[in-house]
């Protein structure tokens, strides 16, 4: 490496002190050069964020760092030296929605540090800020300067964040999961922007992520961390092609490959299990005196059939209405218009006791494993609940059934008496699955069931779901934002945006020959975990897409064009 910027040796981070000290990061070594992109990869609790905070001198109280981090001829970990925050090292956070001060204008937040560091006077700073906003791809930069963070979208805020840090002309930029909270298409744009900035300014970038796809796309060098230790480090090609450590291999294996299709589509000429016809739902925001201020069409004239035994995936970005659709089917949200029939029964007109009985047939699995179990109910009671409500089984029989279910989802029967807080996120999601299948439903609606989990756990849960599907012939509506995951589990895919279905058909057909520009943009934006397929600039996502009624473009493949 030429011109090494930062040289980290034996960096350790410890929480607490003395006998109660808990090591968070253990003896990390790496170098970073100008223009280099180094990726630190790991799951939650791996110590990857603590490493960056140690370099910034932003560790929480009671947490200390030891070792050496040479930067501009000084040790960053030396407590007696003021850390070169901003001007030396810039930091970009994960959550753009909360990372900007809500009560100050964008302009104020962009310029204040320049003035404080003496890089520019107020007028000069303003001019530079406008220039930089333009550079990071924000339209109408002059006008943005006077706006507040809440008036900008998540992607825009992340651009502002990048602009804010780059204005201070740092040598190193640390980006801590900068795209995790963003939609796929926006993520792709932000990654492109970061790459351009590294190329143009020769800044050294430390990219912290859990996503192997992002690593493959961005990084030249990779450092894999687990439980505070570096388990493997090397060039991105070396890590992806010949991972030396078992954990790296496990991480790579866990990534749903977009290259291999695991699902064989079944013939779908049987009678539909569930038919949705012209379903619509609008939400009105900010009602005052009975007049709605704004109306969102969450679901807009959707028609769809789910065949028995299939997994239909509903794919879309946030705000596409995919979850609302799922919730309407589970009768958790009321629809405005349209019909839903489940095996001949009109689902939406049921009320009271008949509805409660019919509910047995449709069960849900939710995203957040921490909130989907009642903290004051034992896991056994949670799983037994649908059985108790929907069947006449005796107490002993119920207990037997719960034991079976626990074993079925990969837990042990003795866990029935424990409470949710004694379980990990992955285990809780298994319990939720056991509860969902307990009373023998005909359709399972899984709303982002793996999004809140680490990749390796994700893979296990997906495996469990596909096992259940093949063994019990479950029908599933799988709601997700992640095309790679969807491709692994779904027989058919429906792509949703702004409440409408833009394309739907067999998974492979949609994947191999997407017909709608939005589907193409989604597939194009998804990071591919293969460093050899590094792309140049993408065609940037359009703002408007055709949203006409669906027409059958190929047998079973419908497009709104």
């Amino acid at each position, binding site marked *: 490496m030429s011109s090494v910027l930062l040289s980290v040796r034996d960096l350790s981070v410890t929480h607490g002190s003395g006998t109660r000290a808990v090591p968070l990061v253990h003896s990390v070594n790496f170098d970073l050069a100008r223009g280099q992109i180094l990726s630190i990869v790991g799951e939650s*609790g791996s110590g990857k964020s603590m490493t960056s905070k140690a370099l910034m001198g932003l560790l929480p109280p009671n947490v200390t760092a030891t070792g050496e981090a040479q930067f501009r001829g000084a040790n960053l970990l030396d407590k007696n030296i003021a850390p070169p925050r901003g001007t030396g090292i810039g930091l970009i956070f994960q959550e753009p929605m909360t990372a900007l001060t809500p009560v100050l204008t964008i302009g104020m937040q962009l310029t204040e540090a320049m003035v404080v560091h003496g890089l520019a006077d107020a007028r000069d700073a303003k001019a530079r800020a406008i220039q930089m906003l333009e550079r990071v791809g924000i339209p109408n930069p002059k006008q943005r300067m006077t706006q507040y963070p809440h008036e900008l979208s998540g992607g825009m805020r992340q651009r502002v964040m990048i602009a804010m840090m780059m204005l201070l002309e740092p040598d190193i930029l640390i980006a801590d999961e900068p795209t995790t909270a963003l939609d796929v298409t926006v993520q792709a744009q932000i990654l492109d922007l970061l790459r351009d900035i590294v190329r143009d300014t020769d800044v050294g970038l430390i990219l912290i992520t859990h996503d192997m796809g992002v690593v493959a796309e961005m990084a030249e060098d990779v450092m894999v961390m687990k439980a505070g230790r570096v388990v493997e480090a090397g060039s991105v090609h070396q890590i992806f092609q010949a991972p030396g450590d078992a954990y790296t291999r496990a991480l790579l294996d866990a990534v749903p490959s977009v290259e291999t299709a695991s699902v064989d589509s079944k013939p779908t000429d049987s009678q539909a299990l569930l038919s949705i016809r012209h379903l619509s739902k609008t939400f009105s925001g900010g009602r005052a005196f009975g007049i709605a201020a704004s109306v969102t069409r969450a679901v807009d004239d959707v028609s769809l059939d789910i065949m028995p035994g299939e997994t239909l995936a509903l794919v879309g970005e946030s705000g596409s209405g995919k979850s609302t659709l799922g919730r309407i089917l589970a009768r958790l949200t009321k629809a405005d218009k349209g019909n839903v029939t489940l095996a001949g029964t009109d689902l939406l007109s049921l009320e009271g006791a008949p509805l409660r009985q019919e509910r047995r047939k449709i069960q849900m699995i939710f995203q957040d494993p921490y909130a*989907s179990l009642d903290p*004051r109910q034992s896991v056994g009671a949670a799983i037994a609940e649908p059985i108790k409500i929907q069947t006449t089984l005796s107490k002993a029989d119920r207990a037997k059934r719960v034991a079976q279910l626990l074993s079925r989802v990969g837990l042990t029967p003795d866990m029935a008496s424990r409470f949710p807080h004694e379980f*990990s996120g*992955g285990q809780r999601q298994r319990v939720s699955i056991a509860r969902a299948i307990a009373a023998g439903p005909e359709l399972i609606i899984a709303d982002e069931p793996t999004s809140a989990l680490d990749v390796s756990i994700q893979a296990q849960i997906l495996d469990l779901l596909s096992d259940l599907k093949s063994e019990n012939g479950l029908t599933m509506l799988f709601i997700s934002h992640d095309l790679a995951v969807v491709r692994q589990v779904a027989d058919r895919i429906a792509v949703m945006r702004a409440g409408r279905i833009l394309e739907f058909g067999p998974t492979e057909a949609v994947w191999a020959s997407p017909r709608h520009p939005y589907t193409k943009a989604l597939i194009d934006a998804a990071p591919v975990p293969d460093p050899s397929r590094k792309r140049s600039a993408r065609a940037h996502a359009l703002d408007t897409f055709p949203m006409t009624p669906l027409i059958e473009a190929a047998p079973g493949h419908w497009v709104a064009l």
Partner: protein
Amino acid sequence: MGILSDVPTRSAPHGFWRRLLRSPNGVVGLTIVLGLVFCAMFAEVLAPHNPSKMGTGGRFLPPGGDFFLGTDEFGRDMLSRILHGSRITLLVGAVAVGISLTTGMLVGMIAAFWRGWVEAVLMRSTDVLFSFTETLIALSFVAVLGPSLQNAVIAVGVAGIPFYARTCYSAALVETSKPYFEASIAAGAGPARLVFVHLLPNVLPTMIVVATLGVSTAILAAAGLSFLGLGAQPPTSEWGYMLAGSRDYINRAPWLMTIPGLAIAITVLGFNLLGDGLRTSLDPVERR
């Protein structure tokens, strides 16, 4: 795969007593409250004199000697009056909070559970009553019912309803929107099961904290009414009323003012500290 990150979280409501006993606020609060309960239960035995017997040993005797806390303008033993007053104070707190808590929880849970127009009607009326402020509601009640300790307690209890209803409503709303609650709906659970198996046990901890802190508010409010002469009537050994009487002898016998005031302050402090301790031990995420 041994994935270290996928470990259970520790928190949750378990180990609650251990956490309560580890918080200094909780321990001090619990001690004070238990001490008060003890005084109230054994006031007959503990009190050296009859609290309403006049002229036992002379008027305005300063604290010390035979009369540990002195005597008042009628020669009644202050210690005995304070001890007997603790019964009234605790009873006032318990009854007033009982009224606010039960009614407030009923309103709050019904509104959060049934939503729609029921929610609109209940919560808008609660908002209106809330902006009325507790003082005004209590005062209006006393104005109508007439001054007496019993009426003061009812007034304070009713005045607290809007606050408890609001708190319970927002706590219940959080729970009903959680996936576990929706999973139970999706499993076909009826209203009784949803309310008693899921909603109530999850709302209760919040309400226990609110009620504990509420006891101190209620005691203060009722003592305030008695202080104004709108609550306890003579010869009750009510602390607020005793304090009101002390004003006329403030120069001659300042202990008539300091002692009942201190008694109220310590009681209220006890419930405040206990409530604080309960809050931190029920919700470990929150900082001190």
